[in-house]
């Protein structure tokens, strides 16, 4: 990240805590620290892959940036402007012209009672970008760009397969010509043969339109393919961050190592050393002391139980004193 390229997205020390309420008076008795101090930046036109297991907070990061969930603390600057300083609905609406989101579930994220044309064109009407014939032309253009055809415009979501619906979702995200797209598990609900079509489409669009992606996913092979930089999250924090090749060739954090070794590879009888982690991801409402990974870590020592680890290092950052 050292060269002169401009960082389009800069997130610093982002925290999203959800209050736990209990009792008769609905008092706050604690917090689920879903995101607890996450920082990263993305250069214009690049892709950052954010990986981790369910409950690690990766989706919450994306949603907080999108202002779908209120942040607890931290900053998010986009193109030099502080996004969290925006407070009025009008300002947030303005922000969403530049930043769009793609969702995981192609079945749940499209309104079944709207036609493709109105799904893709809705944002154009809301933002008063285009209407009437102009809107129709723009929608037709987009729908062809994502590999569907003009005949599809008057159909409803149930008439499409999962992969086609995800293409509609992409067209909708592109409707306002955003610079930055937060992709929340965009291919995990798709069949294997469709997954590669969508990944290729996303890469083509990135090259054509100069898009910047935050690619949130749990599939490490997909993330390796699409990302320029990768951040690994565990229990609300980033535990390792590096450019893609460095991270996959030389993972330093014991969690990243275990995660990579746990992926089943489509090569029979491959001799692979697998690190099987015991236990499960602890609850973020009651995280372990010190390094949150220490109860499952094969290398854990006394020191790990006490000392909170911060992400350190120049280009290859890791939050583990043993790994440095």
């Amino acid at each position: 990240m050292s060269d002169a390229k401009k960082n389009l997205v800069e997130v610093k020390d982002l925290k999203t805590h959800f209050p736990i309420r209990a009792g008769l008076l609905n008092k706050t008795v604690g917090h689920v620290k879903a995101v607890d101090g996450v920082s990263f930046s993305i250069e214009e036109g690049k892709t950052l892959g954010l990986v981790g297991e369910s409950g690690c907070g990766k989706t919450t990061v994306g949603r907080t940036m999108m202002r779908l969930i209120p942040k607890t603390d931290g900053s998010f600057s986009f193109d030099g402007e502080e996004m969290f300083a925006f407070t009025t609905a009008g300002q947030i609406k303005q922000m969403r012209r530049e930043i769009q989101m793609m969702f995981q579930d192609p079945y749940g994220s499209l309104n079944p009672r709207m036609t493709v044309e109105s799904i893709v064109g809705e944002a154009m009407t809301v933002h008063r970008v285009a209407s009437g014939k102009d809107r129709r032309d723009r929608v037709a253009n987009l729908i062809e760009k994502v590999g569907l055809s003009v005949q599809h415009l008057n159909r409803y979501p149930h008439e499409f397969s999962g992969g086609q619906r995800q293409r509609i979702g992409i067209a909708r995200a592109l409707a306002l010509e955003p610079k930055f797209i937060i992709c929340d598990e965009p291919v995990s609900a798709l069949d294997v043969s469709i997954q590669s079509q969508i990944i290729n489409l996303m890469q083509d669009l990135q090259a054509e339109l100069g898009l910047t992606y935050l690619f949130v996913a749990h599939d490490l092979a997909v993330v390796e393919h699409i990302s320029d930089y990768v951040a690994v999250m565990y229990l609300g924090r980033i535990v390792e961050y590096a450019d893609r090749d460095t991270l996959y060739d030389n993972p330093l954090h014991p969690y990243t190592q275990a995660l990579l070794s746990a992926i089943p590879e489509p090569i029979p009888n491959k001799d692979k050393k697998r690190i099987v982690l015991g236990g499960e991801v602890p609850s973020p409402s009651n995280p372990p002391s010190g390094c949150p990974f220490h109860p499952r870590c094969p290398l854990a020592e006394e020191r790990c139980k006490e000392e909170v680890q911060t992400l350190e290092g120049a280009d290859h950052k890791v939050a583990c004193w043993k790994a440095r």
Partner: protein
Amino acid sequence: MTQNGDNLLSIRNLTTHFFTEQGVVKAVQDVSYDIARGKTLAVVGESGCGKSVTAMSVMQLIPWPPGKIVGGEIIFDGEALLEATDERMREIRGNDIAMIFQEPMTSLNPVFTVGNQIVEAVKLHQKDKADQAWDIAIDMMKKVGIADPERRVREYPHQMSGGMRQRVMIAMSLCCSPSLLIADEPTTALDVTIQAQILDLLRDLQRQNGMSIMMITHDLGVVAENADDVVVMYASRVVETGTAKNVFNNPLHPYTQGLLQSLPRLGEKKERLDVIGGNVPNPLNFPSGCKFHTRCPIGCKDTKCRTQEPPLKEVTPGRQVACWHAEGYTETK
């Protein structure tokens, strides 16, 4: 596929249709494969290819209406299951053939403790052991790696994580020592580190009691690392079978080839992924001839592929494929 008679389950020309208002959904057509004793067979395919319906047909859990097994044979341990009475099938289910499902959240009853649910299975199938049912339940939970089973046996499903619930499902299905375990996407809903734990557990249990496993999955990585034999299904039919090693190292059917090539792999630095074009066909309206021809690089140009369906044939011992253009495929048997 194993050639000798040592097959625990043989499916022959199984055909299952769903008679819906929109038309007949031919979910499974002319499907044949075998599962050897003590081995793991993986059935691979994309959504809607009929892999789960085949398994449900074996269990005879196809809901009528609209579903019906319209033809074929299922031989389990020498017994023709399609001719068995309902009463006999109830004995077989759970005792001899057990099943675990993808969604550990929805396959457990939320209003009973997990102990209650395991005990229910024991009492139902092993009436003579009814008084020891709780001990068996605790013992099984210990076997599947649940720490502190004496306490957790009294917990409700919502108090457990996804991985723990899947362990409970496995404990429940194995408490009657079945000889065949059908696992329908057993790890799809789980995280990779938990998936590794569950697959290790299934392997250990198989080593201990010698059961056969039919593993239904779409994850080719899981298949490569766990299966002895593989059946590849596409659009209601079997398109290729063989040992995992052969199928992965030398796929014969263009669909299997495309599937393996389109997969992003770790450590493989590719600029672009290869793709299989088109979409998974709608089961209400399958293409004519070879069902893959619309997406096939060879088939789309060939009249024969468009009009005639290639039957599944053995090309080398233990290796079957259904493609007019596959290496070694001849038109006469």
